[in-house]
């Protein structure tokens, strides 16, 4: 998708995609044929630059034709560079300006409480994104309103555009930060699907507090030369890199098929 589009954010999409897959294929109550069902679980991609990961999952689920994916970022096409609600089936919130998604998710969780609906709200944040002050406004509010129907997923890949998160603007201790704001905090391997599913199930049962799942991830996961390489934050692969990446991913897929 990004190779075709000649722009976009591969690193943060690859670190995020496993958790998004786990949510849509193994956890959330959702129906691609009823994207407006008021009882659906909601997923908000606050780190909107990982749009390719969300779009790919939504297409695989059947929210729209998989063929649309090749038109990412093209003029007169549906899939915008960053997610837009209203125009793209399954996209809940328009994101791309960092720091908004947790607040938006809190609003949908508040509405769920008000309407006595049982849906759950999930929101994925980038770790660099939590530099934004609004995140902490929302962290206070979600905790104040005891939004136990809200679960955050923090893509802790330790990299942002200008470098290592701890060099750019120190985030540690991430776990203590969120728990001091009144959140239930869980920390797992963000690329282990069974750990993700297990954590989601556990946080669903947690009461009176919102939950934050810290996903320890690798930026660029799955492509050797992109892994932990900040240069692939917002730069797509060139032709050679694309072929190498696809060879690696195809090999991985064959290995998985054999294992099955």
């Amino acid at each position, binding site marked *: 998708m990004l190779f075709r589009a000649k722009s976009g954010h591969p690193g943060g999409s690859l670190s995020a995609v496993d958790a998004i897959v786990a949510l849509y294929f193994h956890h959330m109550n959702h129906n691609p044929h009823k994207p407006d069902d*008021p009882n659906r679980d909601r997923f908000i991609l606050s780190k909107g630059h990982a749009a390719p990961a969300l779009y790919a999952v939504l297409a695989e689920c059947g929210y729209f034709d998989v063929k649309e994916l090749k038109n990412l970022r093209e003029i007169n096409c549906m899939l915008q560079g960053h997610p*837009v*609600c*209203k125009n793209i089936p399954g996209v*809940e*919130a*328009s*994101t*791309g*300006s960092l*720091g*908004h*998604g947790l*607040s*938006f*998710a*809190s*609003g*949908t*969780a*508040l*509405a*769920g409480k*008000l*309407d006595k609906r049982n849906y759950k709200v999930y929101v994925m944040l980038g770790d660099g994104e939590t530099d934004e*002050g*609004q995140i902490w*406004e*929302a962290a*206070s*509010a979600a905790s*104040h*309103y005891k939004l136990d129907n809200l679960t955050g997923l923090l893509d802790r890949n330790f990299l942002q555009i200008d470098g290592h998160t701890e060099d750019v603007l120190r985030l540690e201790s991430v776990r203590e930060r969120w728990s001091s704001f009144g959140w239930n905090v869980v920390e797992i391997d963000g690329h282990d699907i069974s750990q993700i599913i297990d954590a989601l199930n556990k946080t669903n049962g947690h009461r009176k507090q919102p939950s934050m799942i810290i996903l320890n991830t690798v930026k660029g996961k799955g492509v050797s030369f992109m892994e932990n390489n900040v240069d692939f934050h917002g730069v797509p692969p060139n032709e050679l890199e694309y072929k190498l990446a696809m060879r690696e991913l195809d090999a991985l897929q064959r290995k998985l098929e054999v294992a099955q």
Partner: protein
Amino acid sequence: MSKEMVNPRNAYGETLVKLGKKLPNLVVLDADLSKSTKTIIFAKKYPQRFFEMGIAEANMISTAAGLASCGKIVFASTFAVFATGRVYDQVRMDVAYSNANVKIFATHGGISVGKDGASHQMIEDIALMRVLPNMKVFAPSDATQTQRIVECMAKEYGPMYARVGRASAPLIYKMGELKDLKIGKGIQIKSGEDVSIIACGTMVDYSIDARELLLKEGIKTRVIDMHTIKPIDKNLIIKCAKETNAIITLEEHSIIGGLGSAVSEILAENKCSCGFKRMGIQDIFCESGEPNELFAKYGLSTNHIVKTTKKLLAA
């Protein structure tokens, strides 16, 4: 004859209560200013549907959008300076771009905030909101009109912004009037064929007073209450341009980007050759003081309106 004074903020709070009874999906948010914005009136009546968001306006606006995505009609209130400039990105992304059913109702707009000074005197809000696609913008002129505008905001889908001042304002319309008020349709409240004053918000009453003074000097002034700044009433502006010799716009806002700009855009693009002058705050920050002192110093008193009108007609 002394005028009956009513505070538009109270009209807002009371109208929310009335609407709240009819509309079970109406919710209200505030950022630690509910006593000033008067959303407290709603909060007391419908505590379950009122959300205190604390001094965290950015979170309030994005949360409002989240609530709206679940079918709520959301009113979010704070002072105009915090409701627009402070949260521009949140309004842009989550409200305007997302075409969310969020109604931002701001109080303490303009310089009549007075003694708090320029930090709190919002003179750019209309410009900031007007430039956003999908956004409708209102500046009601009195308590009666505030009530009607708030009713229209709740009834019609989409992102909207309204601002009123801090102070009580003379009633221009009797309570119960304006049943036929429509979004985007200005109101001619006084007739005249020499000059048209197109005003909004607090300045409509000043225009009526100036009209009386001008009449003593034989100048017949038409007064237009342009409560909706976006979408602007193009036909009414062109009509004024054709039927009167000159147009003056008058607003408690910067002359850049607000009502004056909106009217001038219509005039320039429609071959209107009448005289034209924008009155408002010149490209400047004001200062602390009583509202009437500020109006006198910064060019918004009735005397200024009279002088400007005569000068424009003489030109």
